[in-house]
């Protein structure tokens, strides 16, 4: 019996947790907890007030319930809203000062900070639970005037930037989970690219949820000033837990005139076991604002983890000639559920958007593409192209497409296509005839199906993502 349990645990490669004693805020959601978080982070008064305002608003908001995947009611008073490794009370100055146990965790995850720093040339801002562990490659970036740090640090060092942009894309009065985040967010990344600077490397954050019962409330703010460019990577793995863990992050992107932001995500959080027990609730609000003329925001996501994924990375195309893109692969297996898609809101003239979504569902899972394309009366000469394809494996799973298309401008064009199908017997036969086993054959075909999106990922991610696609579908054939 015990052997079997261990065997089951092995299924999830990253299912372990480090036993660093956690430093937690008292359980529950109230003004005191918010004050506690604000106090411990030594935040200025305006931010505390901002948080409390969000909390006031939260009291009247109701949890949305229109989504396809339903989940048991979350008791928001039974969660910890702040937890940080205790040995972290005084922040380390360099990597050497880090808790060895913490470093070990990253080793197991395959992100050796020191190694990665040298080999990949990626600046890694690793988040362990809710506090930034270390921010690397700062010097190279500082030289160019790029600010890449945790948001708490940015609040201290660059309050004018944070104050100017925080909450401008996702306002306090937004939906329930976004407002919850505004009230209790703990940490996250802050990026500012000064005018005319092309960020020399891919910025990356690895998330990792630890400590049971802790909802993680990340807040990311990326600002690309006039004529700048940045590519940001986000990737995550979480340890195995029985209780469902809530993750409600907010990500805000702002692109000014001629700026471009590319945001890529590979999400591989714990999806729960084969019977659908446990797993992360991934309720994230991601929104980008193309504020300036000729700006561009591009979202790429590979969603393979989480028990429930519920997110719509969106673009508000406000500046004239701005461009929004969304590339997505979502894979659900076993009892996973996903309700994901995008919103493209065309406000400026000559704005363009493109949506490519590939959904694959297997086992008992359920997948929904939900998207909005809204062309306002003033957005003359705008264009949208949407393609969403779904692949079903087995007749116990579901694949749904729910696009909302609103065209209020006669000079604009919208085209939408969607198909649902399965892997054809001929394709499988062809691959197997050439010596692949069924699982490999499916992997190959699925990778081909997703190719359009995988191509959009930066090199380092593309390899990882391709592997993930294969791993996620293990056991779904035959």
């Amino acid at each position, binding site marked *: 019996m015990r052997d079997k349990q261990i065997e089951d645990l092995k299924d999830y490669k990253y299912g372990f947790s480090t036993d660093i004693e956690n430093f937690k805020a008292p359980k529950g959601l109230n003004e005191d907890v918010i004050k506690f978080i604000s106090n411990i982070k030594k935040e200025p008064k305006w931010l505390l007030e901002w948080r409390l305002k969000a909390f006031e608003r939260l009291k009247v908001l109701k949890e949305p319930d*229109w989504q396809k995947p339903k989940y048991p009611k979350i008791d928001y008073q039974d969660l910890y809203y702040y937890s940080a490794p205790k040995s972290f009370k005084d922040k380390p100055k360099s990597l050497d000062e880090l808790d060895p146990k913490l470093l070990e965790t990253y080793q197991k995850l395959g992100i050796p900070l020191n190694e990665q720093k040298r080999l990949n040339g990626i600046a890694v801002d690793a988040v362990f639970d809710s506090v930034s562990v270390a921010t690397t490659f700062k010097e190279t970036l500082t030289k160019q005037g790029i600010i890449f740090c945790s948001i708490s640090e940015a609040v201290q060092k660059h309050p004018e930037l944070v104050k100017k942009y925080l909450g401008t894309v996702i306002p306090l009065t937004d939906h329930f989970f976004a407002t919850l985040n505004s009230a209790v967010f703990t940490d996250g990344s802050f990026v500012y690219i000064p005018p005319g600077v092309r960020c020399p490397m891919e910025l990356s954050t690895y998330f990792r949820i630890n400590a049971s019962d802790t909802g993680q409330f990340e807040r990311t703010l990326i600002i690309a000033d006039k004529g700048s460019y940045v590519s940001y990577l986000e990737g995550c793995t979480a340890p195995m837990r029985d209780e469902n863990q809530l993750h409600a992050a907010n990500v805000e992107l702002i692109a000014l005139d001629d700026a471009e932001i590319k945001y890529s995500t590979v999400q591989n959080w714990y999806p729960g076991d084969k019977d659908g027990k446990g797993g992360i609730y991934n309720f994230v609000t991601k929104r980008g604002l193309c504020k300036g003329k000729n700006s561009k925001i591009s979202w790429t996501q590979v969603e393979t983890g989480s028990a429930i994924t519920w997110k719509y990375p969106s673009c508000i195309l406000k500046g004239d000639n701005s461009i929004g893109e969304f590339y997505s692969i979502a894979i659900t297996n076993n009892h996973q559920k996903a309700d994901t898609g995008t919103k493209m809101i065309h406000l400026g003239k000559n704005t363009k958007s493109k949506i490519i979504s590939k959904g694959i569902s297997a086992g008992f899972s359920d997948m929904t593409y939900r998207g909005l394309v809204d062309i306002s*009366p003033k957005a003359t000469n705008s264009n949208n192209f949407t393609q969403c394809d*779904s692949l*079903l*494996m*087995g*007749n*116990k*799973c*579901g*694949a*749904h*497409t*729910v*696009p*909302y*298309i*609103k*065209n*209020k*401008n*006669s*000079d*604009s*064009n*919208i*085209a*939408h*296509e*969607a*198909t*649902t*199908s*399965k892997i054809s017997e001929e394709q499988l036969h062809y691959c197997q005839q050439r010596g692949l086993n069924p699982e490999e054959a499916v992997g190959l075909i699925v990778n081909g199906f997703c190719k359009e999106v995988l191509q959009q990922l930066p090199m380092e991610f593309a390899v990882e993502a391709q592997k993930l696609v294969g791993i996620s579908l293990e056991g779904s054939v035959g």
Partner: protein
Amino acid sequence: MEEQLKIDFEKKLKDFSYSDQEKKFKETNFKEFLKNGFPNRKLENWKFSDLNQIIKNNIGELTFYNDYKKENQIDKIELISELEHNKIIIVDGKIEKIDFKFEDKDKIDVLVEQSEETIKENINSLINLNNAFSNKFCKIIIKKNYSLKKPLIIYHSTNKNTQSKNTNSRIDFKLEENACLRLIDIFKDNSEKNFLNIYYNFELDKSSILKNYKIDKAINNNVKYSYNNVKQEANSISETFILSSGSKFFKNEINCDLQGQHSSAFVNGIFDLDDENHHEIKSNINHLVENTKSYQLVKSVLEKKSKAVYQGKIFVSSEAQKTDGYQLSNAILLSENSEFNAKPELEIYADDVKCSHGSSSGSLDENSIFYLMSRGLNYKEAKKLLINGFLLDVIEKITDEEIKNLIKDLLGVKQ
């Protein structure tokens, strides 16, 4: 409005002698409607068309009592002369005339239905309203192997002095094995600012064929809602065509349950809208068993401040392998202020299926206009020619030649 509803409902119960069963049925439906009221945009299905608001803006206060004892004048209604047909005439929700003069009387049964004891399906609040206020509804049964010689035209009309009124009508149809019915709905409005609520139930037995053509062409200021509930057995075919054009507001809802193998459903529609008209087609095609097929095509041409909405849903249950579902909507926006909203939805639980949808909207192709104008047409002619061609696609899908020609005449479309 609630006050008015209660007064009118009480008056209705008092004036008509209903059996206990009917009374109970009407009361439950009435309560259900009071609870939910007219649908508004908070409901997913009504997101693009807030009926509550539309009624407020276009009609104001509605009254609900209709005196069904009173005879309505029907000789003033202009009938279709191009086509020999059977007819049913409905005025203010009351069936005034049923005339199957071209048919074999033994093959068609017309029953005045008792109300059901309970609400079988709680579809939406408008159906509750219909059940609560409609006159006795009738059920038409087409007997086994009988195919109607001439089409049946249902005229929906209002009395000259009927205003700010809600009228409700309901007809149930049963097509027995191998029966065939061609049904045309035509709207003849004699007054304005009314809310017409029409509810049809269709039961299609094995191998039966239903063709329903809804023609809303005459310009009028009424608000209309029509719900078709179609249940299909094996090998049956249903074809629905909607020409949505004349009314201020019109929402056509089609619910089709494909519950027998090799049954198929076709829904085709044209929105030809002008002024501030706001029309919607909502389809729900439920593939419940193996080997079923559905096809939907909706095209829109939108002028001035008009608004068209198409919500098409294909549902495939996990048993419904080998389903073939297709859905396409195209819209041409001719004015800066026109608006097209679409929500083509797929909900699929079976893997061996072929389902796809497409939707596009945009302006007239300038290149095509240029091409035609370089060959001597003026702008207006070129535009008309292109739109005709665009709409002809849908009209050509009509399988009945006689009716196809009638609709072509009505639209002024030439081959």
